[in-house]
Structure formats: structure tokens, C-alpha cells
């Protein structure tokens, strides 16, 4: 037992990848086993993540050498407060989305590809968990590529025209992004001679004096590469089509988790690997701040004019990822804390909103926002859950959206940049402009009789919604739980 406990960091990833590989076999011969195996694998990773969280809080950060090859030669996984924070978010929300998917997919996909969907889902989960843990630049690149292919495939699996087209657009743009990241890795390797984050960090201050140009090119390549993948504002063009046309569980995982994991990669590279005093000479973080705050405002404005509910949610993601990058760009303790916390909070909110939109489409077939009038009386549960998500998006106290915005605002004031507080306030108002009318119209609007509920929602679809909604309220009223973990993560990054 103790021998196995030492290998938990590898098991979290390997378990998901292995189950993903046997899924096509199961889909071919033992179809009824697909769902239990997929659920079991993600829950196993969730349990292991909780185990790792306890281990980290007891003994502090530790590293794991894959295959027994020690750090500079082999690939290293580092389990620290930040990676367990990401692990809990990924596996917890991923498990709930999977529970929802088991029911929803039967109606959205062709029968013979449902098994393949779990392959892609587990592959995507595995690569994201790997990204959260890895401490090696090239390993990071490999996981990024797995993540990119899996997330494109999870869109195109619904073989209609919009999905294929959106998926190809996403694939081409994210290939450019990965190319940029690989070039950045090459530049870093060129001047430091290492791929391991820890060793690169040691070598960077000296390398920066000798070869500042290389490092600057590497920084810009990383920013552009990760920016494309995380849909940072001017590079977000692929996101609305991809996230709105995909099957609902895919939209939930793509908007809730996949774009967040790239923000986490950004944190790993720019806050942990590069020394912070670099930013005094290179105005990178100012650029990130401008991009993210323009993204926050413009993303919300685009969202206001959308007619399709999933497209509106997708544009709202463009705005919300801006908050995460705003927090990173502020380079203050509270700002970073707000950014990291928003990764978790937005993962809860956005996956829940996409799933409730999916539930509405599942039951009534309605996608247009103007047709949603009066739907609150017909689907009270889904619309109450949607309202909680909407309130949290606006940042009303008692919901978790308020907590992260609060820390972002404090962080902006800490470094004397009150302009960004204004940006946060403005975007909260804009969020209210497009979320609240939906809620008000759903409950108090005069409904057309044409909207009818065709299917009753099965419990597998309502349960994740209820859990996520209560998690939003609970972490809004008692923020200590995740805040403590995020606070330790920030402390770890600062050292």
C-alpha cells in the first residue's frame, strides 16, 4: 500500500489515459461497460486528487520522477499547492460533467460514436491533469498537443457542418499556438540548456543578462501561443463557434476547464519559471493587462447582441478568461489570488450554465434567447440553477463570483491601478445587462405557448446541476475552503 502511495502522482494521469485507450475496445464488444469504466476512472482520479491534497497540506510540495529517472534527465511531476488546486477543480468538475454527459449524449450523438466520446473525454481529462502536474517543458508541449487534438475531436464528433467547420478552425489556430510554444521552448532550451522548470528558473537570471533577445522572443512566443489556446481577447476568434456548436457536455468541459488549464500553464511559465524582476524591464504584463481588460469589456459587449444562448455563453467565456489573466497581469498577491480563485469559480459557473442551457435544449429544443420567455414556470429547477449561475457571473454577494472579483479589485488597488477596478465594475454591469433579462423573462415574462417540454429531465442531468449550484452558494458564503488552498498556492508561487 505504501509502495503504491508513492506513485499516486503518476497514477492520476496514467489511470485516465489507460482507461481512455481501452474504451474503443469496450465500445466494440462490451458496450454496457463504457459508462461505468469512464465514471470509475474519473472518480478514481478525483479520489487520488483529494489524497494528494491532504498529502501536500501535511508535508508540503514534493516531486515525483517518472520511471525512476531523476530530475534533469527524466520527466518530473511536481505536486504543489497550485497543482492540487487545479487537480481538484479538473477532476471534480470533470466528474460532474461526465455524469451529465452519460444521459445527454444518447440524444445528441449517433449511437455508434458514443463509446468513442468517452475515449476523447478521458484523453482530454488525462492531458489536462498532466498539464497541471508536469514540471518539464517538453512534456508540457506533448500534453498541450494531446489536449488540443482531443478538444477539437470532442467538437467534431457531432458530425454536422457547423461542428466540423468550427473544429477545423480551432485545430488550425491551436496548431499555430502549439508551434509558437514549441519555438518558445526551443529558445529557452537554447540559452539555459534545461527543460525542467526548476533548473530553467535557476539558469534564467544569468541567461537573461547574456541573451536578453532570446528570452524576450521566448516570452512573446509563449504569450501568443498560450493566448490563442486560452482565447485571450484578440486571439479568441475560434472560441464562439467552437464552444457554441459542440455537444453540451463538450461545451461545458471546453469552456469550464480547457481554456482554464492554459491559464494555469501561463501561471506556471510566467509566474513560476520566469523571475518576477524580468517584468520590470519587459512590459509583458502590461500587454497582458491591456489584452485582458479589453477582452473583458468587448467580450461582454459581443455577448449582449447574441441571439443564441450557447453563443452568448461562449462570448461570456471570452470575457471571463480575461479576469483570470487580469489577475495574473496585476503581479500582486491579492490579484494573483483572485485570478487563481476565478479559475475554480468560473469552472463551476460556466460548466453549470452550459449544462443548464443543454438541459433546456434537451427538453424543449429551444436555443433562441427570445423564445425562453416564461420557461421558468415549465422548468423551474433548471431555470433556478441558471439564475444562480447568472447571479454569480454578475458577482452578487453570497455567490462565489463575488469573492474572486473582490480579490481582483483589492489586487488592482494594491498595485495602484484603480483603472482596472473600473473595468471590473463596468463588466459586472455588462454581465447584468445580458444575464438578468434572461432570468427575469424566464420567470415573469409572458410565455408563448409554442414552447413545450418534450422530455422530462433524468436525474443524471439534474444531479450535477444541483451539486454545482449548491457548490456556488457554499463557496460564496464560506469561501475559506478554496480560498485557503488558493492562498497557499499563491504563497508557493511567490517564493
Amino acid at each position, binding site marked *: 500500500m505504501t509502495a503504491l502511495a508513492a506513485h499516486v502522482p503518476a497514477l492520476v494521469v496514467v489511470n485516465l489515459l489507460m482507461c481512455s485507450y481501452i474504451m474503443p475496445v469496450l465500445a466494440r464488444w462490451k458496450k454496457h461497460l463504457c459508462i461505468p469504466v469512464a465514471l470509475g476512472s474519473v472518480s478514481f482520479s478525483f479520489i487520488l486528487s483529494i489524497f494528494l491534497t491532504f498529502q501536500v497540506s501535511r508535508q508540503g510540495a514534493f516531486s515525483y520522477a517518472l520511471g525512476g529517472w531523476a530530475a534533469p534527465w527524466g520527466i518530473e511531476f511536481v505536486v504543489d499547492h497550485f497543482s492540487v488546486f487545479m487537480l481538484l477543480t479538473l477532476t471534480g468538475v470533470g466528474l460532474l460533467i461526465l455524469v451529465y454527459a452519460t444521459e445527454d449524449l444518447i440524444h445528441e450523438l449517433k449511437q455508434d460514436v458514443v463509446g468513442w466520446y468517452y475515449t476523447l473525454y478521458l484523453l482530454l481529462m488525462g492531458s489536462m491533469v498532466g498539464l497541471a502536474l508536469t514540471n518539464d517543458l517538453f512534456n508540457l508541449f506533448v500534453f498541450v498537443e494531446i489536449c488540443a487534438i482531443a478538444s477539437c475531436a470532442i467538437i*467534431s464528433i457531432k*458530425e454536422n457542418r457547423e461542428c*466540423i*467547420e468550427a473544429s*477545423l478552425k480551432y*485545430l*488550425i489556430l491551436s496548431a499555430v499556438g502549439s*508551434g509558437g510554444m514549441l519555438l518558445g521552448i*526551443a529558445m529557452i*532550451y537554447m540559452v539555459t540548456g534545461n527543460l525542467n522548470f526548476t533548473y530553467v528558473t535557476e539558469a534564467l537570471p544569468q541567461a537573461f543578462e547574456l541573451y536578453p533577445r532570446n528570452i524576450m522572443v521566448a516570452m512573446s512566443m509563449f504569450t501568443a501561443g498560450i493566448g490563442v489556446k486560452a482565447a485571450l481577447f484578440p486571439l479568441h476568434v475560434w472560441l464562439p463557434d467552437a464552444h457554441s456548436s459542440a455537444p453540451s457536455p463538450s461545451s461545458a468541459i471546453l469552456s469550464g476547464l480547457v481554456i482554464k488549464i492554459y491559464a494555469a500553464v501561463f501561471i506556471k511559465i510566467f509566474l513560476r519559471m520566469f523571475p518576477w524582476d524580468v517584468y520590470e524591464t519587459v512590459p509583458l504584463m502590461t500587454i497582458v493587462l491591456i489584452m485582458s481588460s479589453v477582452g473583458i469589456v468587448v467580450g461582454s459587449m459581443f455577448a449582449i447582441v447574441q441571439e443564441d444562448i450557447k453563443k452568448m455563453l461562449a462570448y461570456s467565456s471570452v470575457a471571463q478568461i480575461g479576469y483570470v489573466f487580469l489577475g495574473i497581469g496585476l503581479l500582486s498577491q491579492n490579484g494573483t489570488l483572485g485570478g487563481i480563485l476565478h479559475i475554480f469559480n468560473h469552472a463551476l459557473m460556466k460548466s453549470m450554465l452550459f449544462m443548464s442551457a443543454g438541459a433546456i435544449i434537451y427538453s424543449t429544443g429551444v436555443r433562441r434567447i427570445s423564445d425562453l420567455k416564461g420557461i421558468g414556470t415549465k422548468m423551474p429547477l433548471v431555470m433556478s440553477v441558471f439564475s444562480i449561475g447568472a447571479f454569480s457571473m454578475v458577482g452578487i454577494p453570497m455567490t462565489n463570483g463575488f469573492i474572486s472579483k473582490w480579490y481582483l479589485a483589492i489586487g488592482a488597488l494594491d498595485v495602484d491601478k484603480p483603472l482596472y477596478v473600473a473595468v471590473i465594475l463596468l463588466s459586472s454591469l455588462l454581465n447584468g445587462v445580458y444575464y438578468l433579462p434572461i432570468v427575469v423573462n424566464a420567470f415573469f415574462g409572458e410565455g408563448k405557448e409554442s414552447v413545450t417540454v418534450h422530455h422530462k429531465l433524468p436525474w443524471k442531468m439534474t444531479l450535477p446541476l444541483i451539486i454545482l449550484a449548491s457548490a456556488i452558494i457554499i463557496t460564496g458564503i464560506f469561501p475559506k475552503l478554496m480560498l485557503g488552498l488558493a492562498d497557499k498556492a499563491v504563497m508557493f508561487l511567490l517564493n
Partner: protein
Amino acid sequence: MIEILSNLLHNFYYLIAIILFVIGFHTMLSHSNLIKKIMGMNIMDTAIFLFFVSIGYVEGGRAPIIELGQDHVYVNPIPSALILTGIVVAVSVTAFALSLIVKIYQHYGTVDAEEIMRIRSREV
């Protein structure tokens, strides 16, 4: 100025890799034919691979196979090993992209991005 030029001349393989990168990037952005876009993507990837491999090159070095008692200069094997992985990744991305293009051709009857935009805008 002369210093920059002589630096470029000394590291001409980096320069060529970057020129290839720009060619690939430009092909990818400016052509509306989807197949050509994928070709551009591959040229771009190859440029990065060349760049990465040339980092590991040591003047006069040979393949890193250690013979006992002999004292040779070896090239750095790590970039080559990494790029083998990179090539596999690039091949799979290309295969996936081409299969998506086949599907697009089935739906639209063309592989031209502008033509597809025209068809879509006519429908709305």
C-alpha cells in the same frame, strides 16, 4: 549593423529556419484553400523542428554513441530525441485536419474557405 549581419551569417541555419517559419505562416494565413493551409502548417512545424535540431548541433560532432576508450565530440542528442516526438505529433495533427477537410468537402462540395463562407452567408 555589420555585427548583426555577421552574427546572422554565423548562425545561418537559424535564419533559414525562421524564413521557412514565416513562409509557412504566410501560406497558412493568406491561402483560402484548406489543403494549402494544412501544407503551410506543416512547413511551419518543419521550420521549428529544424530550428530545434540545429540547437543541438556541435561543429564536427558525431552521433552520440559512446565507444570505450575513444574521445570524440558528440552532438547533443536531446533535441533530436524531442523532435522525433514532435514529428509524430505533427503527423497526427495533419491526419486529423485532413480528415476534417474530407468531411467539409462532403458537406459543402468545396475545400475553399471563402467559398464556404459564401455558401454559409447565402443560407442565413
